[in-house]
């Protein structure tokens, strides 16, 4: 197990390094940084001075090392647009996106797991097919369109929930549903398949033969085993959702990381974009690492 864990951690670290190189390259592709820092009115001399002052005249590899060292200390430099440090901007918006992600994941799991279990128990009935239809629809629906439709129905027509912003928990309901619905089908299918597998396994058959009530079988044996891979998938889905929340945040004017990233892209504020890419990638790497280690802990066969 230890060897596996070390190997897995090594991979995670090298992936993290590669991603950091990619996001560093992204910033440098976006144009001349010295000109951007100097502002639109600066003349040649000022730009040259800024280039020297920020060390932008050094070889790229040296610049990368310096940048990576600072990034390790959570220092991503200053925004080109706001008179603020990128870290402060990102930190201010992070809770909104994390809250949205957590609620959306909760919505997805709370709907998908029971639905998957029901579908497996009532395999090949109308219930199974309905669950399948819900999941197929979820995969086919453009999330921003779904979000707009939710606003139209629940905010404008019924006036139950607010339209935009993140002031109260109510503001998170619609965006979380829109985001969570997208993640739901995968979780549901996995739960259903896991349940089917477990239900056909020997010990459940034995339990049935012993005359245990179906509910007890469900709770005591089947669910517990079927849920393990779902936790791993949930971790991965959470990472995807943080990345995908950019669209939902735009629809609901939620001032989270996604909205900040989108606006920063539109404003050519690439230090911010680069930091957000890096932060989201790191969260994803950490989550998948945790999920893999957890899985390996639970299932020795995976330690290869």
């Amino acid at each position: 197990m230890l060897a596996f864990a070390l190997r897995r951690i090594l991979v995670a670290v090298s992936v993290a390094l590669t991603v950091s190189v990619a996001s560093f390259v992204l910033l440098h592709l976006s144009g001349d940084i010295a000109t951007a820092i100097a502002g639109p009115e600066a003349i040649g001399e000022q730009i040259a001075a800024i280039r020297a002052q920020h060390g932008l005249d050094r070889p790229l590899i040296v610049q990368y090392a310096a940048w990576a060292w600072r990034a390790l200390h959570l220092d991503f430099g200053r925004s080109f647009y706001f008179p603020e440090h990128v870290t402060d901007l990102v930190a201010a918006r992070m809770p909104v996106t994390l809250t949205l992600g957590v609620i959306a994941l909760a919505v997805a799991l709370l709907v998908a797991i029971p639905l998957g279990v029901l579908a497996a128990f009532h395999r090949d009935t109308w219930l199974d097919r309905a669950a399948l239809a819900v999941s197929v629809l979820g995969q086919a629906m453009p999330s921003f369109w779904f979000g707009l439709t939710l606003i139209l129905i629940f905010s404008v027509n019924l006036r139950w929930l607010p339209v935009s912003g993140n002031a109260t928990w109510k503001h998170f309901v619609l965006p979380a549903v829109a985001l969570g619905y997208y993640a739901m089908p995968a979780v549901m299918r996995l739960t259903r398949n896991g349940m089917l597998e477990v239900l056909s396994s020997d010990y459940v058959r034995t339990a049935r033969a012993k005359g245990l009530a179906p509910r007890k079988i469900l709770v005591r044996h089947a669910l517990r085993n079927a849920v393990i891979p779902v936790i791993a998938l949930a971790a991965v889905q959470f990472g995807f959702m943080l990345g995908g929340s950019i669209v939902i945040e735009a629809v609901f004017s939620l001032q989270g990381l996604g909205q900040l990233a989108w606006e920063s892209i539109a404003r050519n504020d690439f230090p911010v974009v680069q930091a957000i890419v890096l932060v989201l990638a790191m969260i994803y790497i950490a989550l998948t690492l945790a999920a893999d280690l957890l899985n390996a802990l639970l299932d020795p066969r995976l330690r290869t």
Partner: protein
Amino acid sequence: MPIRIDAGRVRVGTMRGMGALLAGLLLAGLAGPALAAKANDTLVYASDSEPENLSPYHNSVREGVILARNVWDTLIHRDPKTGEHQPQLATAWTWVDPVTLDLTIREGVTFHNGDPLTPEDVAFTFNYVLTPEAKIVTKGNVDWMKATEVTGPHSVRIHLKAPFPAALEYLSGPTPIFPAAYFKKVGLDGFSKAPVGTGPYRIVAVESGKGVRMVRNDKYWPGSPLGRPKIGKLEFRVIPDGDSRMAELMTGGVDWIWRVPTDQAEQLKNDPTLTVLSAETMRVGFLQFDVQGRAMENSPIKDARVRRAIFHAIDRKAMVDNLVRGGARVMNAACFIDQFGCTDAGVPAYAYDPAKARALLKEAGYPNGFEIDLAAYRERDYAEAVIGYLRAVGIRAKLNYLRYAAFRDALRGGKTSIGFQTWGSFSINDVSAFTGIYFRGGEEDLARDPAVIATLQAGDTGSDPAARKAKYAEALARIAGEAYVVPMFSYPSNYAFSRDLAFTAQADEVPRFYAASWK
């Protein structure tokens, strides 16, 4: 099976952890809710852009102008109804000669932080913004000043670079006064996070990405031409998306929005809880060309015949009648027609004539048209309608829709061939506030025509109003003749707000919330 027991344990642990995380995040993510409306004496207004810096000299977005007018005072006040100049922070002023202006500074005015207003504050503000280190973005508003000196306990003297008859107009708008001691202490960064002025409202919170909260300045100096503010709390919310703003208004989340597209404004009129106002503004839309052809090799835009063809290709009247509406007018000269010095007499007018446009393109060597990019930052529909008209004469334009900052940089940097610009002249009722920005050789001038620059300089510095007008007419005629820009139309602004609110709109596109009240 030991593994299964482990699984249960781990799962429970994870769930508990998740619960704690969730609770923590909820607490962190949810600040106190903002309540709009009369009951809380809080007027929440929403608009799309967040000023990059709250210092009025360091942003050029309209939201910044609104904040500036509600939080800071200027030396002189211009009555929006009569256009008369009245004393504000300056009680009196005299022209010593055409390049020297003496002003008496009002006593007994204090800044929001308690510092008294002194002539030093005035001199510091104006001298500071002229320094290159200040890196202000509104240079065109102050670069007529050479230096400001304190001449007595209550007086200052402004030295001009050259005679500038519109000086009082500029002193009554985009030149707010900063508290010198506080600014020196906190610097620009600190100032932008906790700005201090003398105006009717005091900023209490600046929330990045969300907006600005203000409360009434209860110590606002009596006798100000702005009057005493009536509403207790003011909140500016940044909602980038127009439809979200409208939905927020319809559901009571905000009290006031503007720039409602005319189609939607007409629908909102049916809502009994809302008031909808439409008024023409000083804002003029225009296509600005990359005249020097920096954006692409062998740019067709360098050819005046192509630019004239574009002029002829667009049915501006149909756009005004069907799309823009709300009191908009077609503009022929590159300025707002009611500004001092703006005229379309003698300015060549280009009728909608696609056949002529095609002929001109053929003459210029583009019988099959060409591909080009067009950048826009405001109403997408208008830009798309222009693209549709261009397509009809063979010009295949691709829309590049950007935020204002990126849009401005793209035009200035010669990275786009056509820009759908709009300009509100900083609400200054003088043609120099338009032509001075786009044709006098500055950063935004993409034509850099020496003849136009010279004529405009003569107009800006002349002392005889009639002679100034003649110079401007000459410059405007040349601008239109060369088709450096295609003036489109004036912009109406559609305001929509809660029935409870008494609000009057002004043509200068500056909502004066200090004058608003609850019904």
